[in-house]
């Protein structure tokens, strides 16, 4: 079972790397926000899986905080982007 969890961990790391490159190399700002959002949700899953892999499942509190902060950061970016919204 731990082998499966380890494989899942590595796979999520690869997905996070892809989302990160999307966030870094984005044509428009909205693509960048999309990359950041996808990276955030994948981080939540990563912590949950690592918590179970290491046998310390009280990491789940941190996963909840990640989900929270990811959503609030997303709303803040959209809100303040509409203030200064020249489309580049």
């Amino acid at each position, binding site marked *: 079972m731990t082998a499966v969890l380890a494989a899942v961990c590595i796979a999520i790391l690869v997905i996070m790397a892809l989302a990160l490159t999307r966030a870094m190399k984005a044509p428009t700002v909205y693509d960048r926000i999309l990359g950041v959002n996808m990276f955030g949700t994948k981080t939540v899953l990563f912590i949950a899986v690592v918590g179970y892999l290491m046998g310390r499942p009280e990491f789940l509190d941190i996963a909840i905080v990640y989900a929270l902060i990811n959503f609030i950061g997303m709303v803040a*970016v959209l809100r303040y982007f509409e203030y200064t919204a020249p489309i*580049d």
Partner: protein
Amino acid sequence: MAVLIDLVLLSMLAITALRVIFLKDLFAVVMLFGIYSLLSALIFVNLDAVDVAFTEAAVGAGISTVLMLSTLALTGRTEKENKRSSVLPLLVVIATGAALIYGTLDMPPFGAADNPIHQHVAPRYIEESPKEVGLPNLVTSVLASYRGFDTFGETVVVFSAMVGVLSLLGAARRRENSDDAAVIVAGFKGHKVLRVVAKLIIPLIILFALYVQFHGDFGPGGGFQAGVIAAAAFILYALVFSLSHAMQVVSPKFLQLLASLGVLLYASVGIYSMLKGGHFLDYNKLAADPLVGQHFGILIIELGVGIAVFAVMLSIFYAFAHQVERSTIK
């Protein structure tokens, strides 16, 4: 396995930091900085620093990003071209970097159990703290009980940061005529779905903040993290509905009162333990049995820290958001 995760995360972090240097669009810089602090919080989780990851995620990726975004809304989004040549800074950076890397060569290897850092002070606290303080979370017991006076100083530092920001930006006053036409930028009026969902999850976030506040003794959490998460809930409310709505719910005057109440609560625990014959912030005297006294003491000061940090973070956000709204209206 943990080493592999550590290596991959560190290299992702390095690439993000590199990318931040060469970006001109400040919006992208702040978003990548959000990812940077989220990634560093992940590395803290991997290095077994659970409380630190909690704080870094909530504070670093949450509050700092929101404050920087509101500053960008005031100061403009793109950085102008830098005419000065970048050779000199590069040389300075390379020189100091080489000296530092040379310095790390004779540091003890990473993760070895017999490193000098683990021999001197740590064993005493790992063995003694269950007997003297009785909390499973060693970090909270050291933070709140052994080093209570420093945490008191830290709470006062956070309070003085609020005083600094309010004196610089002017305290946000709740405009009585807040429903007049001047309030043009009234939140996401168009986003109906966002407003309904925000109404649904803000109580959940506050409930989670209370859980974190009182769960600090047994797992990751504590006063600082709880205060920041509660402030993040109200920041979400202010972002989705307009600032004046949020100010009607929690007025700035009430926040300043709450901040000073939190710091006062912390200090009164210290004074009370002095009245009972102990030193300042000596919780053993708070109850008949010292262990119960420790529990009371830590619970109350964590509550004081939580209230103070919540009020400080929210009033700092109010000051910034008030500036943003004032600048867009005129």
